[in-house]
């Protein structure tokens, strides 16, 4: 199968737009899948809230930090259709998140290693 582009480069509009890349490519996802995802999201939210109320402090925070990314993944993969998209979309999204994570992490090389008082900064 050829590359993603039509043969005479400057597209024959209808062919190019529709055949490989219109919405006909993906059949609609059944409703019940989304309902289930929604229920899962509500349940996970309840779990997070219960943990923070029942076990305030480290445990509550820990649960939130684990569960929230799972909720995010559910929204991304199903509601935002990322599960059904080409790998390049997943890769792009992951790259953006990785950059954010790295940047946040590197910032903490400053803040985690400072002394006390006034941010412990000394020139």
């Amino acid at each position, binding site marked *: 199968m050829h590359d993603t582009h039509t*043969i005479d480069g400057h597209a024959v509009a209808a062919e190019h*737009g529709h055949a490989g890349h219109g*919405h006909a490519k993906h059949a609609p996802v059944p409703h019940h899948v*989304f309902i289930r995802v929604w229920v899962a999201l509500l349940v996970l939210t309840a779990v*997070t809230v219960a943990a923070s109320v029942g076990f305030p402090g480290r445990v509550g925070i820990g649960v939130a930090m684990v569960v*929230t990314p799972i909720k*995010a993944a559910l929204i991304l993969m199903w509601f*935002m259709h990322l599960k059904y998209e080409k790998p390049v979309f997943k890769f792009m999204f992951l790259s953006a998140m990785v950059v954010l994570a790295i940047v946040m992490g590197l910032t903490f090389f400053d803040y985690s290693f400072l002394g006390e008082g006034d941010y412990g900064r000394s020139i």
Partner: protein
Amino acid sequence: MSAVSKPVAAPAAHHEHRDDEGSKTGMWLFLFTEVLLFGGLFIIYAVYRHRFGAEFHEAAHELNKVMGVTNTFVLLTSSLTMVLSVGALHRNQVAASLRWLWATFGLACCFLVIKFFEWSAKHHHGIWPGGEHLHSLPSGEGLFFNLYFMMTGLHGIHVVIGMAVMAVVAARISSGRITADRFGALEYTGLYWHLVDLVWIFLLPLFYLTN
């Protein structure tokens, strides 16, 4: 392989070609910028939480957990109605699609109303950006509330923008400009809306479940 022979007269204005995957790529790239925009604020939150952990904890008592959690359920449900709207249009069920879209709009309204009550209550207690009371609090608590207003405020602006876009899209579905064959606009509105939801589900534990 021979090229297809296709002498074409010059198009009148600009040559339009449809590329749904390209449009979707563009939309996702835009979403990345939103992630990084909020990301900057999350970095600030992380730094100050690290520094003022106890005071963040203390200040969080002031926030109304019930309202926060309710709003979370509201937004999660609105994400559902949004995705059902897209699915309906995909199946050429225009009326159903519009109903789900307006349901999303309604839930978004609901979110803003609850937010309004939350913020009014804060204002009533003198907890307001640039306010005297805020200034008199210990630094960490002041920073917590400033972050709260900044992040939920920026998020709220995005909710309002989302609602405006939904209204426009609904009008275009009604007028037949967005159809089952060509519903990118609705789909990308959905992606935007889900991102708004995504940001909120991170805001919930950071602000409302911190104590």
